[in-house]
């Protein structure tokens, strides 16, 4: 899945030796994890995960089923404790101490079926320290704001699955948290509501709220995230800005020439893919040479190749994922994403 964005010549950089953890700069970290390990029954579900999530960022956790995403998020939330490693969430090593500033949407959604929608929101808020009366007022207001005001007094069991999911989403935001963690937030949502959720996540980040979400769908991460962590087999082979992930693989050159042969052919890498056309012209696809684009251009012009078009396409996040996590993980990710409801 090549990324359509075209880059100016010389802007790209190889990042083969780039640090796995992005430079934090002067930004405060909402989450810092070092060497998190979690074992279940002798099986290592998470094996030395390092994460640094700056405050106010939209951060994606990418990986197929069983990669360790949910376990990592649960450790960050304090639902389970790591067997080894350190975690610091909003400055605290005990996540429950800052629970009032965290919102969480678990992958397996659930609310008490007999509760009314606005009460369910207030209840979750109360668990996070928001007074019940205030939670009820905010619950009604949130439902109204998101077009669900008519359902405020309905019991959860009377709502459709999608509506109940939206209620739970609002419930995890009612106390205005500084950090929200969504585990597979897009699963089970139709395209319309997925778009709505993306807008909501951007709005949260604009307000300074840190948003972390796990997903199988790379497109969501690519559209939303400043940074991502790629998890495969319980390890994090990459964590950092999306651009840095893309830069882990070379951009692809897409060249169209009037002629398909000549002295200039020597400048084109031997492993380039060629598509001949009936009129004698040809398309060439190859990774950008390490020497850069200028020597190639010079050879093409001097050899009179007849350049019809030339573009350098930056790698997409999907390609980066394949390069970083491996083909098997990428295939598993695609299979997960194709599952119904995912």
């Amino acid at each position: 899945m090549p990324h359509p964005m075209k880059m100016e010549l010389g802007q790209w950089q190889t990042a083969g030796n780039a640090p796995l953890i992005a430079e934090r700069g002067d930004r405060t970290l909402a989450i810092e994890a070092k060497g998190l390990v979690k074992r279940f029954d002798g099986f290592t579900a998470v094996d030395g995960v390092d994460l640094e999530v700056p405050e106010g960022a939209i951060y994606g956790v990418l990986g197929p089923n069983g990669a360790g995403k949910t376990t990592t998020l649960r450790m960050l939330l304090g639902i389970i404790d790591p067997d080894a490693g350190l975690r610091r969430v909003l400055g605290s090593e005990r996540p429950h101490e800052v629970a009032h500033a965290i919102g969480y949407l678990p992958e397996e959604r659930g609310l008490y079926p007999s509760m009314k929608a606005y009460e369910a929101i207030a209840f979750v808020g109360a668990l996070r320290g928001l007074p019940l009366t205030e939670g009820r007022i905010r619950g009604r207001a949130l439902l109204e704001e998101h077009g669900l005001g008519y359902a405020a007094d309905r019991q959860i069991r009377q709502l459709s699955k999608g509506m109940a999911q939206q209620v739970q989403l609002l419930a995890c935001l009612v106390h205005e948290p500084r950090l929200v963690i969504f585990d597979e937030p897009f699963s089970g949502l139709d395209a319309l509501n997925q778009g709505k959720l993306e807008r909501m996540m951007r709005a949260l980040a604009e307000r300074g709220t840190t948003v972390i979400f796990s997903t199988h769908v790379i497109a969501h991460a690519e559209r939303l995230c400043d940074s991502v962590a790629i998890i495969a087999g319980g390890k994090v082979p990459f964590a950092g800005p999306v651009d840095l992930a893309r830069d882990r693989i070379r951009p692809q050159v897409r060249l169209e020439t009037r002629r398909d042969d000549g002295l200039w052919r020597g400048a084109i890498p031997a492993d380039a893919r060629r598509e001949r056309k009936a009129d004698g012209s040809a398309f060439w696809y190859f990774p950008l040479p390490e020497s850069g684009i200028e020597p190639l251009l010079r050879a093409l012009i001097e050899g009179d190749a007849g350049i019809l078009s030339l573009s350098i396409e930056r790698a997409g996040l999907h390609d980066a994922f394949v390069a970083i996590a491996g083909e098997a993980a990428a295939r598993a990710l695609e299979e997960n994403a194709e599952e119904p409801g995912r």
Partner: protein
Amino acid sequence: MLQASLIIARRDFSAILFSRSFFFFLLGPLFPLIIGVVAGSVSNKVESAAARPVLGLAMTASDAKAMIAAGKALEGGLGNAAPEMTIIRSVSPGEKIDAAQVLKEQRGNIAAMLTGSPRAPLLTGTEGQIAQWRGPVSLIAAQALGNGPQTFPEVALASTATSTASERTGRMRTAQAGQTLLFLLTMMLAGMVLSNLVEEKANKIIEVLAAAVPMDAVFFGKLFAMLAVSFVGIAVWGSVFGGAAMLSGQSLSMFVTPAVGWPLFIALGVTYFAMAYLLLGSVFLTIGSMASTVREVQTLSMPVTMSQLVVFFFASFAAAQQGSMLAFAAEAFPLSSPFAMLARAAQDGAVMPHLLALGWQAVWVALFVRYGAKLFRSRVMKSGPASVKPKRSLFARLARDSGSPAATHAG
């Protein structure tokens, strides 16, 4: 943590109170009541065996020995009518003793005192008891004198208002009534506590709770809610039984006043009920939390009920042997401690042991909840690929570290 517990308790309390199942919960005591009556009759038999009245002897050593030997000799002929005798005090010839005072001071199961000599025996005790033993004592005294059956010494009688034995037997009944009531109340809660976390797991809200508050707070919240519900039940049933008792002219006077007095006994009863519930509840909540379905909970109900019965019978049996190692064991073992201590309150007026016991029980409640919450977090709130977690039965999961179907199989 307390605030979080109260939020969960409040939710659970109102959810249960305004549900249809609460009606059935209120009907619940009818069923264990029947079991209680049966259990009570078993306990009565235990009590009659354990609390057999004894005749205390305060005579010269030779007279006492002669009486005991004669009693043994006549045992076959007299059967159960022959009193069991024990030497309370050896007296010098001519020494006068206050038999009524000696009887009052006895801590054992001494129902009457025999003083004087085999030639002129004096039987001191409650009217009913000395009337019952007058004939056998005369026979035994004749045997002790070697007079044969034709010449029976006259047994002088001195009646007292009460004896250690009659008071002890009465208090024993009070203790057993208290224990039985405590057992019934805790028993009717067990099923509800077992299934308490199944709702959260079925609704998948457990993760929302676990992420927001420590699991200990979830456990405490649920226990407090059920305790509050049970107090509502007690208030309802207490009013019903109290009203019925008043209408039929019955009152607490049908029981002997417990050693600590009625007000403190009732207060201790309520406190020990709360402790018994919290102790058993925390264990059952943990066991139930490992279950994923109502069917698994139903499977658990029988062994749980049986284990409750074992605890009850242990405490009940120990109650008849106050001061023994067995009684101490029942008082020290956390799960039987509230039952055993309530029985103690009926039979022993000392207050300090109750304060110590309540502290001891509170420590165990905290430990059970802490361990239960830890177990729940480590066993249930796990994630990972389904393929690495073979599905095992509930019992296997409880017995050892293993996967739970309730755990989400996500990345």
